[in-house]
């Protein structure tokens, strides 16, 4: 047993997959001055609050839907104004479908507008994906249904060579199986690490688009005892204000 694992045992249970995701996402937020978290995003929210707790006041967090962890006073437009000014360093987007060109689809499958399956809609993605430097794509379900060769509808496109003002774009993508980096020069996802209990083969089997696989793919680092204590204490309490059901699951 490694020292970290021993410490985790000392803190109680070993890290759950959710706690592992929170810790991994927090690792992608290092150095951010301002992280914003959109609606229906408990795990990214917890990761942002974890980052803030460890930042000695250097990281500001704005959680949409929260009263205590959101200081906006200019209505819903404020997040978008901040993003266009370069005052938001990181944001999270998901997708019902995501393809290898980092296009995301939040609208539906089949032919628009009478899609076979309709999802809620594009929300702020068609804007924030261009303007926030570190957009972290987060989708727990890692299947060929989600990770497709080509999305049916582009809510927000991956980076393109079209001369459009775009300081922002994909920084990484995290799923229940693995963490992908994004190679901006080649405009491709690169497998960065695989979560404990999973394999590179499994990732290949369940991904419908092509991506780069380095010779050596490490295991995704997991939270140590101190990190778990922070997640199960302060972070759980803070995220519980906005997501009480999620916080209760974290405690279970």
């Amino acid at each position, binding site marked *: 047993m490694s020292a970290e694992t021993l410490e985790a045992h000392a803190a109680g249970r070993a890290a759950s997959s959710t706690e592992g995701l929170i810790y991994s996402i927090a690792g992608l937020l290092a150095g951010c001055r301002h992280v914003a978290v959109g609606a229906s995003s408990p795990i990214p929210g917890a990761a942002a609050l974890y980052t803030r707790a460890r930042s000695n006041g250097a990281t500001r967090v704005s959680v949409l839907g929260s009263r205590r962890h959101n200081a906006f006073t200019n209505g819903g437009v404020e997040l978008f104004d901040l993003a266009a000014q370069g005052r938001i360093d990181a944001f999270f987007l998901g997708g019902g479908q995501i393809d290898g060109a980092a296009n995301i689809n939040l609208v539906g499958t089949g032919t628009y507008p009478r899609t076979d399956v309709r999802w809620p*809609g594009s929300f702020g993605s068609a804007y924030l994906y261009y303007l926030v430097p570190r957009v972290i794509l987060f989708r727990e379900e890692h299947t060929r249904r989600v990770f497709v060769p080509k999305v049916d509808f582009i809510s927000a496109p991956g980076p393109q060579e079209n001369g459009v003002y775009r300081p922002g774009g994909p920084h990484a993508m995290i799923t229940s199986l693995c963490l992908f980096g994004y190679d901006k020069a080649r405009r491709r996802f690169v497998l960065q690490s695989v979560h404990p209990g999973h394999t590179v083969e499994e990732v290949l089997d369940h991904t419908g688009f092509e991506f780069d696989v380095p010779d050596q793919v490490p295991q995704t680092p997991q939270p140590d005892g101190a990190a778990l204590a922070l997640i199960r204490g302060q972070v759980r309490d803070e995220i519980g204000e906005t997501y009480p059901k999620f916080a209760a699951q974290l405690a279970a």
Partner: protein
Amino acid sequence: MSMLSVAELAALVPDGAKLVVAKDESGVSMTMAFALMRRGTRGLHLVTVPVSGLQADMLIGAGCVATLETSGITLGEFGPGPCFGRAVKSGAIKLRDATCPAIYAGLQAAQKGIPFMPLRGIIGSDVLANRPDWQVIANPFAEDDPIVVLPAITPDVALFHAPLADRHGNVFIGRQRELMLLAHAARSTLVTAEHIVEGNLLDDEARSGSVIPALYVTAVAHAPRGAWPLAFGDEYPADAAWLTEYVARARSPEGFAQLLAGMTHGADAAGLNQGAHAARLAA
């Protein structure tokens, strides 16, 4: 400004109106949505700022909506909007998919009385490809900088639920500043208020900055629990039992029609009206 009943307020929304409503957290007048359904409103061009949930889903299900301009419709933790999904599939509503900041920008153009507003992003998305009313122009002040321009969104009616109003027609909105934008952009603004206060809200300097002055407000109705079954600020949480049952029943057109008939006739036969009834008694 006049103080009206909810039914009188609903009569001020004509068929075919471009109606703008706020997202759930900002203050949704569900009591007015029910009144519009009861009245058999038709042909609405519904604009959600920037998203909506139960309100849009029910108005769509009841056949009130011809065109839907939105960045997202979801019932949040209760799942997707069943009537919305059905209407998309059948083609019963004309869809104008947007992205959140584009809806704000369109309203801001109307607020300023200008024809359009430029906005970053969007180029290369299928949202733009499906909006022939949105254009890409060259930035007139810089080289090689294509940028999207969006036409002003000028609603006929803005509708929302606010915590406080006074008898002069001033409306307190707290931090929900986008309600100010709705009122500034729309030709008329209809408000249901949780509480009516005596005096003049503008006399209180500490909160006058969060007050929509009566000059923008067409009419107010006093409607305690007017956001029910949705949550309203610190006043009351969402009625989770009602919403759970809604999702189950609205899954089929028959179930939704039955639910609607129960509400429309004010009868408790559907069972779902009991909550509203109790809410009125408690008020």
